[in-house]
């Protein structure tokens, strides 16, 4: 699926939830499905700043694509990062660094995106893109 398609799919999925509770239940579910992050990455170095809860994010190159893994001590935040990973993981650094993440707005999580340091979506997206940019620059240099 393209970046666009996977976002549209998520938007569709969220559309069937009329109630905010269903949405959040879905995020809780997603969080439970997120593969565990290797314990050694649960350190200060991998923490994303600007979240009220702790979010650890790790990225590595797998051939030409980036794979993200993450964890959080808060469940909804973990669900959100799982959603981001669903959209972004397994794509090229170039695609990720320029990604237009229109789904965030459309599924009503925009609140979480405001760069107010109150919560982490903004910082998560930023950190994921930073990884992508770093890998992209590295590729260019080779």
């Amino acid at each position, binding site marked *: 699926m393209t970046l666009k398609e996977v976002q549209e799919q998520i938007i569709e999925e969220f559309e069937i939830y009329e109630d*905010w509770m269903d949405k959040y*239940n879905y995020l*809780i579910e997603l969080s439970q499905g997120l593969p565990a992050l290797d314990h050694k990455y649960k350190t200060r170095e991998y923490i994303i700043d600007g979240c*009220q809860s702790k979010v650890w994010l790790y990225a590595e190159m797998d051939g030409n694509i980036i794979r993200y893994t993450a964890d959080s001590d*808060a469940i909804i935040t973990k669900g959100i990062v799982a959603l981001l990973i669903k959209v972004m993981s397994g794509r090229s650094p170039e695609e990720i660094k320029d990604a237009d993440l229109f789904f965030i707005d459309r599924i009503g999580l925009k609140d979480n995106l405001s760069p107010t340091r109150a919560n982490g979506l903004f910082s998560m997206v930023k950190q994921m893109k930073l990884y992508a940019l770093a890998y992209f620059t590295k590729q260019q240099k080779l």
Partner: protein
Amino acid sequence: MLDVNKIRNDFPALDQMVYGQPLVYFDNGATTLKPTVVVDTLKEIYSKRNSNVHRGIHYLSLRMTEEYEEARKRVRKFINAGSDREIIFTSGTTASINTISSTFGEEFVKEGDEILISAMEHHSNIVPWQILAKRKSAILKVIPMNDKGEIVMEKLDDLMHEGTRILAINHVSNALGTINPVKEIIQKAHKENIPVLLDGAQAIPHGIVDVQDLDCDFYVFSGHKVYGPNGIGVLYGKEEWLEKLPPWQGGGDMVEKVSFEKTIYADLPFKFEAGTANYPGAVGLAKALDYIDTLGKDRITAYEKELLNYATSRLSGIDGLKIFGTAANKISIVSFLLEGIHQEDTGMILDKMGLALRTGTHCAEPVMTRFGIDGTVRASLVFYNTIEEIDRLYEGLIKLKQMFK
């Protein structure tokens, strides 16, 4: 008895829906809502009476100056200070504390001296002293608290000695709700000749403060936490202290004469009020204090006690809910955690139910560290809150537990 329904009409912000639910505002510790009388005062000043104060000799300026100085008297009366000269308007609690940490620090703190604070301070009563300690190579000492969130009074005695220059402590803890035995603390400190600064940010909105009775040397608070506007705060200081301190900021209004060679500072309280004052804020604050007096401080205290008792017993009934801050003497703040559920999750879900609570460290990280947690959910209740709202919180938490089980 307070007529809560009538009171609620004075706060238009209470009458709104959030995510389709009537708002429950339990974030009063962060900032209070404003009664119409305060909002209208600001509106009237800004649309009709506004004019810069002091030194102007035209009609509007003279009138505004009078209103501003009346507001000063109003504050003096509210905290029962001895003189208007002891009431300094600042931009808030934080600025008031920094004024003292800077000027008192400059004048009286030297290398190796000790500054005493408590384990339950807000960052605003920690960081200024850390900055001072660093600048002067002084030492910051901390009075511990027990598991209920009460100051350990015996330790206080041990921590005070000749080298202790100042004791800065909150009157009421914003994270735990503890009302500290400040009168006793001040008596002990004064026996050792240690002046005391009280951070009253959370005390002022909840009850009676009498600075002469307390005999504190400095008392500070913010307008926005006591039903008044933002950008205005108060620094009370005993005249004898304020006279001894150098000014902090330089600027207009705090000087008597200026030349490039020599500048003579103005008298109290102006010495500490550099730049154009936030006079609409000061007058708005005075109106807020009037409003409180109209309701009656005693009645407010009694009603808020009732809210605290009800909230405490209701929430304690929830399995796995733990309250942090169980001091014998508390204001109406309930800080808690649900076992196994992160405070952020709790806050986010309650928000969707229309309940506004604060989550996190409440700018009091060391308090969290003390309890081995990294945050709580905090309901801070005031006189416009109701028993029914507490029930909504209770039900919300029950529902939430279902979601996360």
